[in-house]
């Protein structure tokens, strides 16, 4: 019997080539009872290793290779051999024996990781190792180990001293002399010395294979990773590469054969494995307790807060029945919370929300938390789960042994940062950390890095990268072969085939550790004894070594503090509206049934609105025709892969439009599916269906959802299906109906969208729609100030606002601030109305620091001219002055100044004549340059600010377009269904959704609106380049006018409109 006790996985980041799951799978194949993972300087892969091992009933031993600075450098090839080995500290392979050992290991790694200045360079001191040696077993390691280093550098005696040092640190029983055999003569020499040393010091021998990959063929990936890590190419990497492919996981038989002369080294593996009692199941994590006033328990304190909340939330609604129902629900939830000992968690989240409210930070809980009446009462969420009859079990159930998930949406940017910093302050540096985000190789990164390693030039790689991974949809032709062929690679060439193969093979392997956008984990004790912490790239941020899924898997509670651009827009609107419209606005008090809002939504006039602005949303809005808030909840949820793949969208739409009768698979399902016209759309409905039809408990139903989720197992599915059938049989449901219900449940479980989540998003969507309809100037200003976000470019947002009657004034050095602002203007009817002034942030390349200086000087005294501006604001660089001139922002500095005049003057102003001539007054100078033509102005606008406040580019050629019988977007609705028509416009969006079977959707914008184009996959293949590259298109096709207007293209041609650099939102 043999146990492999020294494996590295790909979570050693470029020093291992297989995923932990692959290692476990091979260990299971060889019937190993246990296996140990020792990744470099961390336990990054431990949860996945542990999870996979549990499934295969293998014991997963933990450990890590720890770099130690005081034990010398790793062995390098002899001096006479040329090599490029960098100097690195030796690594001690440490195996965890007990929980104390695990905690020691985590703390030890945290200590030196938090100290490291550059990623991957940290190393522990000998003193630190000594402090944290308890509960750990030390191996002498392979070629990176202390024995190899000592023998190579100073010989046998030094090696003996090094071993004695290890014995001193870890104790005689905890040091094993490691032997590895990879058919390498140098290694064998080392082994002979090691055996003699072990004998003389009476230390046990331990055979390992120093595993770096699961299968021998993964050696190629290991070599590629070595090159990436050392910034070299395969051709020049030399001895940095593996000598052979022997570092794969070997079977016990092979290992026994290999160590036939040293059977004790094999026997030690099982003996040591038996001593390693710790596994990750024994993590010892505890969520922090919330400090409550004396005489209170966390439960009593939470109960009081919840009861207060119920009164505040439901009292004003004046619906006694609802109020009572809510109280009952809250009591029920509180009982469960108490039973599961989760009061602390709720209070901590409540505390975060309270902090945000106090600081004026807009916050709203989303996700399954919105199913909880307690969360609603505590002010964490904004959707009334009782009124909307949401299913609490989706959020929390007794059967499920895991923490509930609460996500908080915060305005992106500084406000969210404030909330994060509050958590750090409150729970201390070692008490809270961000979850990690393991960056893995994806299409582009794989193509790029493998290409570099194989020696391809940057230009070629750029071209290839630009072709890879653009689409959400992956059709038959969207594969590596095609990407390579389009990039001009000869697929018959050996090297190209290899390149292709490697790109495919390194997909999803970890590259490095990033920081998750908002997930925070908190711990009662020291978080660094649960998982090692390390510094994030962002200053003052600490991340744990596990990503959010791993944290969840390990039962570590996490709170997601997510930045949402639209929350920032809403927050900014709340500030702008009272200032410019003269009355305050409260989002909680906006009318819930505003007719203008619903009319606008039905018209799909939704550019800029949250969640309902995409091309697909716009296409379905007229068909869904929302009239009340719940319709909007459905609208948010329906354009998702779930309903589309589950084929629920079209039946719903047909029923909604009265084209199909509403029917239910079984009468018992009517109360559940009534709101969605008999079509299951939400996860909660699915859960309820199982509960009603097959008598599942809430927890069982949630289990069902998880079993059918992304990582579905056939056996588990079968098990649940039998349970469902039995339940339905007991309820007397006919076999045919049973089949229908099971199909509905199984096809939908995977992609379903939680109703609570949809409701939370619908609230924001409604608020954004309301603000856009009633406070267009403020909404547009806020939207522009929070770019990039949403679906459309600033240019489209501005054009849309202009079409809705908003006056948008261009950037002006004397009027504009950094951000877009609001001004008063007089509309066509002679009334005063708010208008929008584009901010200086939109001048490309203009720094905020320079703008601050401009504003400071402008407040002191207005600028008299361009020379005055350049003199008084020395912070302005010449390039910035040029950009300002080109954007027309300096036209107000003087009379009859146009952009070219400004450009002319700026060139002179930017070359000061020197102090001698400073005193000579400026002579007003006329420019010999021609005024910009319309086309030149357009080009300059888009070049400098990415938008134009002047006429749409299409306006200038409308006459010609009309002559070509090209329709305007606004005229399409007057044409009948099936009419052959022509449109032209600027491409503002290209989409190829995963659910659309290869169809491509284009949005063409002209001066009157947006035309929707549908391109058949065959046509797309024929004119791929034109569709993807051209900025303006002329499309001929058949008009489809069935509530939604679109054109099914039969021909797509480029059209010359302008050379301006318009932008399109592509394939997101």
């Amino acid at each position: 019997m043999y146990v492999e006790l020294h494996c590295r996985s790909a979570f050693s980041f470029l020093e291992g080539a297989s995923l932990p799951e692959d290692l476990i799978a091979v260990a299971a194949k060889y019937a190993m009872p246990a296996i140990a993972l020792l990744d470099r300087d961390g336990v990054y892969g431990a949860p996945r290793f542990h999870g996979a091992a549990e499934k295969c009933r293998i014991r997963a031993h933990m450990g890590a290779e720890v770099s130690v600075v005081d034990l010398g450098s790793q062995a390098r090839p002899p001096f006479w051999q040329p090599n490029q080995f960098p100097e690195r500290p030796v690594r001690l392979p440490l195996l965890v024996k007990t929980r104390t050992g695990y905690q020691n290991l985590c703390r030890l790694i945290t200590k030196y990781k938090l100290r490291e200045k550059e990623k991957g360079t940290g190393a522990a001191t000998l003193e630190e190792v000594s402090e944290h040696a308890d509960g750990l077993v030390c191996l002498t390691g392979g070629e990176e180990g202390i024995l190899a280093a000592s023998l190579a550098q100073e010989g046998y005696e030094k090696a003996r001293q090094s071993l004695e040092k290890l014995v001193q640190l870890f104790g005689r029983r905890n040091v094993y002399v490691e032997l590895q055999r990879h058919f390498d003569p140098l290694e064998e020499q080392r082994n002979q010395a090691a055996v003699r040393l072990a004998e003389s010091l009476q230390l046990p021998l331990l055979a390992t294979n120093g595993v770096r990959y699961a299968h021998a063929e993964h050696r190629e990936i290991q070599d590629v990773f070595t090159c990436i890590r050392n910034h070299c190419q395969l051709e020049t990497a030399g001895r940095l590469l593996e000598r052979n492919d022997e570092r794969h996981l070997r079977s016990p038989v092979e290992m026994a054969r290999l160590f036939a002369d040293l059977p004790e080294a094999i026997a030690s593996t099982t003996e040591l494995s038996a001593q390693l009692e710790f596994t990750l199941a024994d993590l010892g994590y505890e969520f922090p307790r919330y400090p409550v006033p004396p005489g209170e328990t966390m439960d009593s304190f939470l109960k009081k807060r919840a009861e207060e909340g119920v009164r505040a939330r439901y009292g004003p609604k004046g619906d006694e029945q609802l109020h009572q129902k809510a109280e009952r629900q809250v009591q029920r939830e509180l009982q469960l919370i108490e039973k599961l000992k989760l009061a602390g968690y709720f209070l901590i989240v409540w505390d975060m929300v309270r902090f945000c409210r106090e600081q004026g930070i807009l916050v709203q809980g989303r996700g399954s938390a919105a199913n909880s009446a307690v969360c609603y009462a505590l002010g964490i969420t904004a959707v009334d789960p009782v009124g909307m009859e949401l299913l609490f079990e989706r959020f929390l159930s007794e059967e499920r042994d895991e923490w509930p998930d609460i996500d908080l949406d915060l305005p992106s940017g500084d406000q969210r940062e404030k909330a994060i910093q509050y958590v750090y302050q409150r729970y201390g540096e070692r008490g809270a950390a961000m979850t990690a985000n393991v960056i893995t190789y994806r299409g582009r990164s794989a193509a790029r890095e493998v290409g570099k390693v194989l020696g391809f030039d940057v230009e070629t790689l750029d071209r290839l990268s630009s072709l890879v991974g653009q689409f959400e949809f992956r059709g038959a032709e969207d594969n590596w072969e095609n990407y390579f062929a389009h990039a001009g690679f000869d697929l018959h060439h050996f090297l190209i085939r290899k390149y292709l193969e490697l790109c495919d093979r390194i997909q999803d392997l970890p590259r490095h550790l990033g920081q998750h956008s908002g997930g925070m984990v908190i711990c009662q004790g020291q978080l660094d004894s649960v998982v090692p912490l390390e510094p994030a790239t962002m200053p003052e941020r600490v991340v744990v070594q596990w990503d959010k899924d791993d944290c969840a898997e390990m039962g570590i509670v996490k709170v997601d503090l997510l930045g949402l651009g639209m929350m920032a827009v809403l927050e900014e609107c709340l500030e702008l509206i009272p200032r410019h419209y003269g009355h305050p606005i409260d989002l909680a008090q906006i009318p819930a049934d505003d007719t203008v809002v619903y009319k606008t939504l039905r018209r799909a006039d939704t550019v800029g609105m949250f969640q309902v602005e995409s091309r697909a949303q716009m296409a379905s809005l007229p068909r869904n025709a929302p009239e009340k808030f719940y319709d909007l909840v459905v609208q948010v949820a329906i354009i998702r892969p779930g309903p589309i793949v589950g084929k629920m969208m079209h039946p719903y739409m047909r029923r909604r439009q009265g084209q199909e009768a509403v029917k239910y698979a079984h009468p018992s399902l009517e109360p559940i599916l009534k709101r969605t016209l008999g079509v299951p759309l939400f996860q909660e409905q699915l859960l309820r269906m199982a509960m009603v039809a097959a008598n599942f408990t809430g927890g069982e139903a949630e289990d069902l959802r998880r079993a059918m989720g992304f990582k579905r197992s056939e056996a588990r599915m079968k098990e649940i299906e039998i349970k469902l059938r039995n339940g339905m049989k007991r309820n007397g449901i006919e076999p045919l109906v049973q089949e229908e219900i099971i199909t509905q449940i199984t096809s939908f479980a995977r992609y379903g969208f939680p109703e609570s989540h949809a409701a939370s998003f619908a609230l924001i969507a409604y608020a954004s729609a309301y603000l856009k309809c009633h406070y267009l100037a403020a909404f547009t200003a806020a939207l522009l100030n929070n770019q990039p976000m949403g679906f459309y470019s600033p240019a489209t947002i501005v054009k849309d606002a202009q079409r809705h009657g908003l006056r948008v004034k261009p950037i002006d050095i004397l009027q504009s601030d950094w951000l877009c602002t609001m001004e008063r203007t007089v509309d066509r009817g002679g009334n005063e109305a708010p208008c929008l002034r584009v901010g200086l942030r939109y001048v490309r390349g203009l720094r905020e620091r320079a703008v601050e200086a401009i504003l400071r000087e402008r407040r002191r005294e207005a600028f008299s001219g361009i020379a005055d501006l350049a003199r008084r604001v020395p912070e302005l660089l010449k390039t910035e002055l040029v950009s300002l001139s080109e954007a027309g922002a300096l036209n107000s500095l003087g009379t009859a100044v146009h952009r070219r005049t400004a450009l002319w003057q700026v060139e002179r102003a930017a070359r000061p004549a020197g102090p001698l001539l400073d005193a000579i007054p400026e002579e007003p100078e006329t420019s010999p340059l021609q005024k910009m033509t319309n086309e030149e102005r357009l080009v300059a606008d888009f070049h400098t600010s990415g938008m134009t406040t002047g006429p749409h580019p299409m306006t200038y050629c409308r006459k010609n377009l009309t002559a070509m019988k090209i329709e305007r977007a606004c005229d399409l609705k007057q044409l009948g269904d099936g009419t052959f028509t022509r449109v032209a416009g600027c491409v503002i969006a290209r989409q190829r959704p995963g659910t659309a079977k290869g169809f491509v959707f284009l949005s063409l914008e002209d001066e009157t609106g947006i035309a929707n184009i549908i391109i058949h996959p065959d046509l797309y293949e024929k004119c791929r380049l034109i569709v993807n590259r051209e900025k303006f298109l002329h499309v001929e096709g058949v008009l489809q006018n069935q509530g939604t207007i679109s054109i099914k293209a039969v021909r797509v041609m480029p059209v010359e409109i302008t050379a301006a650099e318009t932008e399109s939102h592509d394939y997101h």
Partner: protein
Amino acid sequence: MAFACIFVPDFPAQAAVRLDTGLHGKPVMIYQGAPPQAKVFAVNSAARAMGVELGMTRLQAEACGAIEWRWRSASQEATAQAALLDCAWTISPKIELGSKREENSLPDTVVLDIAGCEKLFGSLEKIAFDLKRVTADVGLETQVAIAENPDAAICAARGFVGVTVIPEGRESIILGELLLASLAPPAEFLETLHRWGVHTCAEFAALPEIAVIERLGQEGKRWQQRARGGDQRPLLPREFPSEFEECMDLDFPVDLLESLLFVLNRLLDQLCLRLKMHVLAICELKVTLTLQPNDPRGKEPVLHVRTLRLPVPAKESKFLLKLLQLDLQAHPPGAPVTKVHIAAVPARFRTRQLGLFLPLSPEPEALEITLARIEREVGEGRVGVPALVDSHRPGAFQQNRFVLREATAAAGAARKSTIRTALRIFRPPLPVLVELRKKRPVAMIWEGKRKTVLAFAGPFRTKGGWWSESPWARDEWDVLMPALRPKFESPFAMQEKKKEETALYRIYLDLRSSGWFVEGVYD
């Protein structure tokens, strides 16, 4: 004052076409880069018309249609440029090579000061047409322009097709219609001028001069003057050569080495004399022998070039002549020589104080002659010092030039040397048959004789180069067995009782071909 400019459009493509008559009149593209990364580096106008763009890969370019292609050849380009210079030198001794358009390309223009040439060659128009004809004779399609100043000539040559002669005083009018790109100002000026809406030379020329200076500085003024065709600058004749050259056209073709050595001796004497005047020696010698072409109508010169790189700079013509003699004996020209050209790269004298107690090493000059003699015997490129390379590939080494190690360096290296077992490698390895038992070698059969393996160690496995078309994979064993061949011993020793000799060999199994080989024997 008058200046002529010759411009070779698509210079790299033309450089390839001119030597290859089969390409004349056809669309041609030139690739650069090692396969499979080859990309279009240059095209001629016919290929461009078919849609080929610079930077395309082979697959993309080949999709444009049937287009002839060649690899880029730096020597062809250099020769083309030399030919271009030769053409220019046929008219005027004062010539200036234009600036490079791109970093890795050669200049495609040459400017000639043709003041006074009218008396020799006729009118300016005639000179221009002569230049065009002469360049056409060496296979280059050129655009020629003549103007009052060099830059106007360059601008016109680049901007106008064919031959352009700008009459005095008409520069601004004629150049005015050209786009600014023909002027080729710095990119930043071009960008600024485009921003100003200024796109042609005339528009640039029309801007007020002082205002231009205020904005673009003196450099701007110069470019504006060029746009006006009025920038009078002195020609920058070709730089003082980094090589010293001597050349002799022979009255009649020489086919005997002795006669050639007589000529070489004269040239070397001259070169050494000139270099001595500058207190310089020679570190590299390039001899270009122009051979009598087989086809007397052929205009392309046939060259026989030999380059000698010297380890230490030399100044003695006798020594250089001896080296040349040895080299030419090893590499005799294939035809009678009609022209001899020697280019010498100068260097400073070697000054070195020899250590009083250091062992004497051979004189560098003598050593060099010895090495040249050995090379003549064993073949070119087969003399040097082996050096290890950073690779796991078995037996991988590179051959460096043999240079006498400095005494101090030798002493330094000796410090760490220890006694190591040496493996004498058989090149090529000896193919053998190996008997295995339990996957271990027990005997070896070589030349029909069976040798029992007495002891072994291994296997030691190396696998690599999987990304290349020559990967390696082998299992090596060190085996002790009776010697394959007896050692040479003196007849006296033979009288003693003969005991079977054993030796330690390295054998290996090539895992790709499954063949066994003896790689070498340990000392």
